């Protein structure tokens, strides 16, 4: 796979940016690249890049995270160190941008450097299973809002169609017409399809440019949610 020097993941909040950014950074590291990932999320209080700190460290990925991530300090401050990603051209940089336009404002300060260097991929992460981006038109609206706020035009689309543990290969395949329409509306290519690794295994050969992802187990995963994804009965 061809990699740009800087890869940014942005999109609607809850679209899966952090998981993709972490897994993409791990992929770069596996390919022997000197890799750094920065958590630029100034919106989300929980479930951050830092949750994967041990995996990233083990793979030799440099993690740049806000000083107060995962603490009680609810302060939208970014570390000065994040400038290293745009200044040190010897590293492959991954940027995990916060959700929606509100999250993308943080990108503005790095935008001039990124645009000047012209060696970046700005990926729009799309999940049609999210209620506010059910249609490609709604996704396009979010895309434009993010571009206006962050100052970096998108260059690619990531198909991250998923229903968490209920995701099946069909969930991802069913999203293809949506992604194609979004591609047509925006003029951007569908660059990657990301899916949890067991789901990705079921997609092999059916879809190009797969990014299989290892997802972090969470303390609140239920016994019935472990193992292959399936639909659970609803609360009555």
């Amino acid at each position: 796979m061809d990699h740009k020097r800087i890869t940014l993941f942005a999109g609607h909040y809850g679209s899966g940016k952090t998981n993709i950014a972490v897994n993409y950074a791990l992929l770069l590291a596996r390919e022997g690249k000197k890799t750094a990932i920065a958590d630029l999320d100034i919106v989300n209080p929980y479930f951050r890049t830092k949750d994967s700190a041990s995996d990233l460290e083990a793979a030799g990925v440099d993690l740049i995270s806000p000083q107060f991530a995962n603490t009680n300090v609810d302060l939208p401050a970014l570390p000065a160190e994040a400038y290293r990603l745009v200044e040190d051209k010897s590293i492959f940089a991954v940027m995990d941008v916060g959700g929606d336009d509100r999250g993308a404002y943080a990108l503005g300060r790095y935008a001039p450097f990124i645009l000047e260097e012209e060696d970046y991929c700005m990926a729009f992460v799309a999940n049609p299973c999210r209620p506010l981006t059910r249609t490609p038109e709604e996704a396009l609206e979010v895309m434009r809002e993010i571009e206006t706020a962050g100052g970096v035009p998108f260059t690619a689309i990531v198909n991250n169609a998923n229903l968490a543990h209920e995701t099946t290969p069909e969930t991802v395949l069913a999203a293809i017409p949506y992604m194609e329409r979004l591609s047509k509306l925006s003029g951007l290519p569908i660059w990657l399809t990301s899916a949890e690794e067991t789901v990705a295994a079921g997609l092999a050969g059916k879809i190009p440019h797969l990014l299989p992802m290892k997802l972090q187990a969470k303390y609140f995963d239920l016994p019935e949610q472990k193992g292959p994804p399936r639909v659970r009965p609803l609360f009555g």
Partner: protein
Amino acid sequence: MAERVLMKGNEAIAEAAIRAGCRHYFGYPITPQTEIAAYMAKKMPKIGGVFLQAESEIASINMVYGAAAAGMRVMTSSSSPGISLKSEGLSYIAGSDVPAFVVNVQRGGPGLGGIQPSQSDYFQATKGGGHGDYRMIVLAPASVQEMASLTVKGFNLADKYLMTAMILADGTIGQMMEPITFEDVEVESYDKPWALTGTKLRRKHNIVNSLYLKPDELERKNFERYERYRTVEENEVMYEEYMMEDAEVCVVAFGIASRVAKNAVAQARSEGVRVGLIRPITLWPFPSKVLRQAAEKVKSFVCVELNMGQMIEDVRLAIECTRPVSLCNRTGGMIPSPDQVLASIREAQKGGN
């Protein structure tokens, strides 16, 4: 089958509220529940509803009081310190017998505390918070699905019993994402002949008020209100039982703690320990009867809570202290691990009689 969408707990509450007919949202931002306000801000203008960020929590709860008195389905949401500020209004709403829907996505306390998940507002939610004799229906979701389902249920119950229904969630359930379906609880509608909708000179005017000039009249009102509360206690208790059939140890946990506890129970079962879980879904009315029945079969109880031990008092009361009840807890935004719960289960199995 109704379509499934992937939602954050906070968003699920907001969307479910809209589907339940809520067109009035008054709030003030606070982590970790701000997504509720953000979702409302985005959606309410598109559907002819009202989203209003008030100047404070106190203002927003009084706006809820006003809209509720006018017979509207109305809500506010906040997190722990914000709910303390709203407590005066909650007491006035109770004293006026109008229906309201309130969400508390708890964070660590006391004081400003922190932004990480907590369950330390159990006392506040179930025993008052505001002044005077009153109750609120307190619903404790343990999944994103239940955030949605219990929201619809909460609006229904509030209208049915003319009282506040509160969702007592925590930061984790507010922030985490799960696939859900919306149409699983039917939206009920109730006539509101008491509402302040304007007489148009065709009827006697209605009064919504919590001030009574005569003490005997106030006493009578309180008696009547508690009659209604008794009906709620008889009819509206909700709980989940998990592996209780042959259990010797009963774990009691609600909300996010129940998910950790469920993992520990499953693990203990695989090691041959006869343990089960009772998860209260309504914290008021509390499932006292089912716990009392469990006490006749099990040796001991373990309460798993994200606080210094609050629900444990209701468990001891429910079983009239006939069995030992131990506490397995973390606080301040920390979460007990399944191993910690497992250790408490093993300990509880040794004790009791």
